[in-house]
């Protein structure tokens, strides 16, 4: 175990990226990601890391620049949030189709309108089908660890896909908290130099991101799907390797007091630890409550989710975004579809909460459990509700 230090998480993320021997970063600052952009820019300007920091004029350009540099064989990094991510949107599927191992932090924030700068997951959800590996973190330590791990996953020869790391804006980015920071030597040992599959170079011309009509497009889409599904094997291997080196183990689905739980709750991101406190309170009252934390959003861990929730009678899926006019929150519909063919499955309830930064104290989590337990006729199962909404 290393020494615990205290630092703001966004700054620590930039420090961690600074340990990863990046060649290039193109980051356009946006709240609440700005401290990542500022501190990484400082590291380059102060000569602490040997990398190019490209001061782009927009997020669209940031993503375009890292696509170009990654294609040229440079280890490339960017970070954004909310509207910035929306502005990158049209380029995200291009990065994955070109199999470029770009790493991006997303300081999750609500998308406009109305304008709001605080935390929820409405920025990442519209990017779900871009073909990126998508990871959610729940605390500062994970933010740092995943920022380093992401390069190794992305660049693995059996993956070659971009990775985004979802770090709840403010809730995590602006928090000064304790964690262990790996040393440069440790990161060097873990993360080998980037060996690209192919590079853009005038002396040896290749075509990347070529034109494909109906004759090849379907095959390329199938290849992308296979690549993303196959990446899970590597993700698990890399997380295991990390656990051996650093003693911190990560799984696609984590559980807390879930084995004998009759009612489970599922969270993604920074809500997990607060929800854990609610589980302890409920357990103390004799209620068999448990928690499931989803860390890997894409590729979606179907088997792990099924195994984690199969014994529960009721499952509360929490969402930090909504699919308007649709079946409820995006995590809810994903879980329902994952369990559709299962003979034994829990009744599923969906609470959409913590939108635009609305705080969710422990009492709200226990309240959700109590409400679901009180629904003895199961009338509210399979429905969604905006938790705590004023009407």
């Amino acid at each position, binding site marked *: 175990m290393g020494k615990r230090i205290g630092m703001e998480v966004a700054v620590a993320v930039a420090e961690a990226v600074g340990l990863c021997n990046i060649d290039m970063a193109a980051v356009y600052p946006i709240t609440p990601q700005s401290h990542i952009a500022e501190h990484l820019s400082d590291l380059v300007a102060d000569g602490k890391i040997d990398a190019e920091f490209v001061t782009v004029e927009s997020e669209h350009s940031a993503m375009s620049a890292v696509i170009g540099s990654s294609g040229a064989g440079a280890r490339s990094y960017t970070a954004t949030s909310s509207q910035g991510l929306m502005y990158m949107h049209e380029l995200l599927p291009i990065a994955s189709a070109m199999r470029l191992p770009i790493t991006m932090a997303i300081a999750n924030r609500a998308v406009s309108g109305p304008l709001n700068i605080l935390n929820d997951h409405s920025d990442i959800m519209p990017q779900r089908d871009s073909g990126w590996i998508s990871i959610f973190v729940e605390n500062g330590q994970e933010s740092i660890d995943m920022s380093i791990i992401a390069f190794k996953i992305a660049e693995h020869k059996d993956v070659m896909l971009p990775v985004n790391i979802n770090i709840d804006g403010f809730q995590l980015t602006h928090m000064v908290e304790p964690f262990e920071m790996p040393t440069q030597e440790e990161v060097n040992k873990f993360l080998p130099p980037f060996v690209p599959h192919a590079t853009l170079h005038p002396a040896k011309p290749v075509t990347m991101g070529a034109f494909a009509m109906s004759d090849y497009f379907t095959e390329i889409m199938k290849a992308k799907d296979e690549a993303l599904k196959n990446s899970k094997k590597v993700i698990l291997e890399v997380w295991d390797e990390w656990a051996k080196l650093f003693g911190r183990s990560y799984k696609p689905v984590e559980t807390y007091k879930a084995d004998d739980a009759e009612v489970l709750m599922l969270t993604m991101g920074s809500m997990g630890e607060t929800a854990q406190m609610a589980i302890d309170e409920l357990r103390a009252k004799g209620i068999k409550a448990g928690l499931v934390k989803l860390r890997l959003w894409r590729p979606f861990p179907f088997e792990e989710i099924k195994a984690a929730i199969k014994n529960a009678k009721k499952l509360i899926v929490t969402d930090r975004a909504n699919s308007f006019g649709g079946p409820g929150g995006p995590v809810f519909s994903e879980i329902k579809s994952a369990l559709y063919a299962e003979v034994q499955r829990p009744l599923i309830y969906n609470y959409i909460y913590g939108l635009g*930064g609305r705080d969710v*104290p422990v009492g709200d989590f226990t309240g959700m459990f109590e409400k679901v337990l009180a629904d003895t006729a199961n009338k509210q199962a399979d429905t969604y509700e905006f938790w705590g909404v004023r009407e």
Partner: protein
Amino acid sequence: MIEVRWHGRGGQGAVTSVELLAVSAIAAGKYAQGFPSFGPERRGAPVAAFTRIDDKKINVRSGIYEPDVVLVLDASLIGLVNVLDGLKPGGKLIVNTAKSPDEIRKDLHFSGTVATVDGTGIARKEMGVPIANTTMIGALLKVTGVMDLDAMKESVEHRFGRIAQKNLNAMKRSYDEIKISN
């Protein structure tokens, strides 16, 4: 666990204080969180910042609604914002003011511990500026006993470099001069 809410105005350094305090507590082997009231902040407008310190890992990530301690960096906020909001009945109120604890107690009708020190006066004398954010950390440590004053040295030196000692001197004076009424 001890939970502290800081009241100040944008630009008075409440966020810097919670950061220094959390970093120092963590360096001293404790667990801590330091965070601003999330959102846009404007110079001069009332702001809040928060500190949690514990001997074990802190899991809660929601806001602080029932603080053990409230620290008011700018006494002109009293009456503008409800500084006592949620403060536990047996909690501690620390105010940067030249007034006595009893005067503040009378103004606010608070039955818990009230402590006052002229942090701005100390900051002016020790550092030549009327910014009392680091100064008031000394008062907080005296009133709460959450950790030793020495634990602040490293983070203050790291943050302030050549003017660190002046900050530490101001902190020490507020530690020594704070008047506490239980």
